[in-house]
């Protein structure tokens, strides 16, 4: 069988099995299809939570504050947080782009356990369904905030148990994905794909998978304890029975702080793929980036109590955790340094993915630096539980992970769907996204320093101006999001056919057709070069 005559296998988007249409998708173990299942479900939840956020901002305008009650507001910020954190940002990049591209980037035909992979998606959907059911059944949607702090979460009459069980299922999905990715990277690298020849997105996914594995079970057991406490009254967190609410805070943050790195590490990995392609240069400091991912995973697991500086820990504990928090900023800064150095003297091709990648770096720096401020004890006590925390968190999670998600989507969209979007429409959407984002969240930072507490339905008149600016910002931001996704949906149906390698990338996904064929590679490639080996580098 000569190579020339071999017809290309059909694209993964074509049904070739006995099942057709939706059923073929819902039973597929192809990692690419599972990636798209996640993408579709995740973006749906994302827009639901964006809508909720929009309402939360709207009622902060004094003229509209009568639209909902304070209790509804409590439910809204809880639901917004739970959906965004557990349904979008935590699974975000690993489940979509990790699933789709991790096997391709290491030259494999699929993940190590394809059926487990599909099962993870079903766990995800089951968790999502339970969480959403919790909103409409029982005695109202949970009103605890996404952190489910005891003792309030033990005594509130709202539907906390069900929501917490949903989060438990989502954690299970996340853990199984982690197991799958670690095994995939250990076992399925193509011949010659040494550890230090892997694209850095794989390193980021690998570090993330370890956090998913080591941190998520702690959340799982903590949530189980909340349910047992509510149903049977076991008393471990209940002070009236000798339990300790502070223990809950510790256990919750032992997971939930590392979870922040589950959210950001794959985002950093995606940015690390995008920059070399559009600078046509190998990444600066490959090993520094690879090891900083592992360092973030390691140190990031030891900083959880910086969420609890005002909870009454010992002076020694708060100082230790403050110091560790400062230290975890170092590997993140190493990455930023390497990204910027990669651009230096590169032949920069300013395409939409690069625009969003640079936006990521800018917004992430603000998020990171405000994080260092929060890690400092004196500042933390002043701005604890204010809008400053909300602003910081959104700069990191939305400005960081969200923008990286958009950048990765723009970068890989032509490969995933074989269609190219209108670049002009994307550029146009960037302006409202960027302007709206900063109006909304930078104002929150300022409001926080002024003393506006988070999660309050009513605010003092002196915060009116700030809230007005933030609310208008939220409208501009949503307008940008609609334009952005409008352009992508349009491209999906009416876009031009994309080339196999529209950006001049050199990693393995650009060597195969767009959209990729089933099983990705006709023949497993043999790797002979480093990950970012651009041809002109040889000449220079």
């Amino acid at each position, binding site marked *: 069988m000569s190579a020339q005559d071999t017809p290309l296998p059909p694209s993964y988007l074509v049904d070739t099995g006995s099942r057709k249409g939706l059923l073929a998708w819902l039973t597929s173990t192809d990692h690419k299809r599972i990636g798209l299942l996640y993408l579709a479900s995740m973006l749906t939840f994302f827009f639901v939570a964006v809508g909720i956020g929009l309402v939360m901002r709207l009622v902060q305008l004094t003229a509209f504050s009568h639209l909902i009650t304070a209790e509804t507001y409590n439910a809204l910020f809880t639901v917004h947080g739970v959906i965004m954190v557990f349904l979008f940002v935590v699974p975000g990049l690993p489940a979509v782009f990790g699933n789709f591209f991790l096997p391709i980037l290491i030259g494999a035909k699929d993940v190590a356990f394809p059926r487990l992979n599909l099962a993870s998606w079903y766990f995800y959907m089951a968790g999502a369904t339970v969480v959403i059911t919790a909103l409409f059944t029982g005695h109202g949607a949970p009103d605890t905030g996404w952190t489910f702090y005891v003792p309030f979460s033990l005594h509130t009459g709202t539907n906390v148990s069900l929501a917490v069980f949903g989060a438990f299922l989502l954690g299970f999905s996340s853990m199984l994905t982690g197991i799958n990715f670690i095994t995939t990277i250990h076992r399925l690298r193509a011949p010659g794909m040494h550890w230090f020849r892997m694209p850095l997105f794989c390193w980021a996914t690998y570090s993330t998978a370890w956090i998913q594995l080591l941190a998520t079970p702690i959340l799982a057991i903590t949530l189980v304890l909340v349910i*047992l406490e509510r149903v049977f009254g076991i008393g471990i967190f209940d002070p009236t029975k000798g339990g300790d609410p502070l223990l809950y805070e510790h256990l919750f943050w032992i997971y939930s702080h590392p979870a922040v790195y589950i959210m950001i590490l794959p985002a950093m990995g995606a940015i690390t793929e995008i920059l070399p392609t559009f600078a046509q240069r190998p990444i600066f400091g490959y090993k520094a980036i690879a090891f900083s991912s592992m360092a973030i995973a390691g140190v990031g697991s030891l900083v959880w109590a910086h969420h609890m500086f005002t909870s009454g820990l010992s002076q020694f504990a708060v100082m230790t955790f403050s110091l560790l928090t400062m230290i975890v900023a170092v590997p993140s800064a190493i990455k930023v340094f390497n990204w910027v150095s990669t651009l230096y003297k590169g032949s920069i091709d300013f395409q939409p993915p690069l625009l969003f990648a640079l936006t990521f770096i800018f917004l992430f720096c603000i998020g990171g630096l405000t994080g260092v401020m929060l890690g400092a004890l004196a500042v933390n006590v002043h701005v604890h539980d204010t809008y400053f925390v909300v602003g910081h968190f959104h700069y990191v999670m939305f400005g960081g992970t969200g923008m990286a998600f958009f950048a990765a989507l723009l970068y890989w969209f032509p490969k995933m769907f074989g269609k190219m979007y209108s670049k002009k429409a994307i550029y146009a959407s960037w302006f409202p996204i960027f302007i709206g984002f900063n109006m909304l969240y930078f104002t929150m930072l300022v409001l926080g320093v002024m003393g506006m507490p988070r999660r309050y339905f009513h605010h003092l008149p002196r915060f009116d101006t700030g809230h007005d600016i933030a609310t208008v910002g939220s409208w501009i931001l949503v307008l940008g999001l609609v334009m952005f996704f409008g352009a992508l949906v349009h491209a999906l149906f009416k876009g031009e056919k994309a080339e196999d390698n529209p950006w001049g990338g050199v990693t393995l996904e650009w060597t195969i057709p767009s959209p990729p064929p089933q099983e990705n590679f006709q023949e497993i490639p043999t790797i002979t070069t480093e990950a970012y080996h651009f041809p002109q580098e040889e000449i220079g």
Partner: protein
Amino acid sequence: MSEPNHAHADHRDDFGARLGMWLFLVTEMVLFGGLFIAYSYMRSTYPADFHHAGTELNATLGVTNTLVLLTSSLTVALSIVAIQRGDRLKSMAFLSASLALGVTFLVIKATEWATKFHHGLYPNAPHLATLPHGEQVFFGLYFTMTGLHGLHVIIGLGVLSYMLVQVARGRICQDRYVQLENAGLYWHLVDVIWIFLLPLFYLAA
């Protein structure tokens, strides 16, 4: 019956399967790890109460159950050895022994729980509420940890029963037994966790 267009159907990776199982066991250990953290914190807060509450537990039954579970682990290991030697019937016999021992464990556990309920030593019981805080927490942890462990035993029994069927059908055989090995690993984990629970509760007095 063949699996339709499955990329890896004929690419077996036993090492990968075992690696995946070990990673899963890590998550199980961390799951219980959270409870061990809670236990050690509470015990350091209420050392005297824990000591006193521990006297309520029947150490003889606890040690008996340990022996039952350890023996069941041995028989699982023996069933793997048997299948490696191609002795299907012996493998099935050892697996059945493990199942019987697992059920025995649960029966003993159930009688213990029943005694505690009878004495009013369960969460939200009026009698327990009159006891010192530390004892309330002790029994909260006791029921949570042995309950979660019991749940794992039940799941393990389900897995082992499935293995028995697979061996009987010849799906697990002399040169294809990684499933059984993984099931065995899970059962050993359930065993190991119990070995920690025994001193923490039954020998706390």
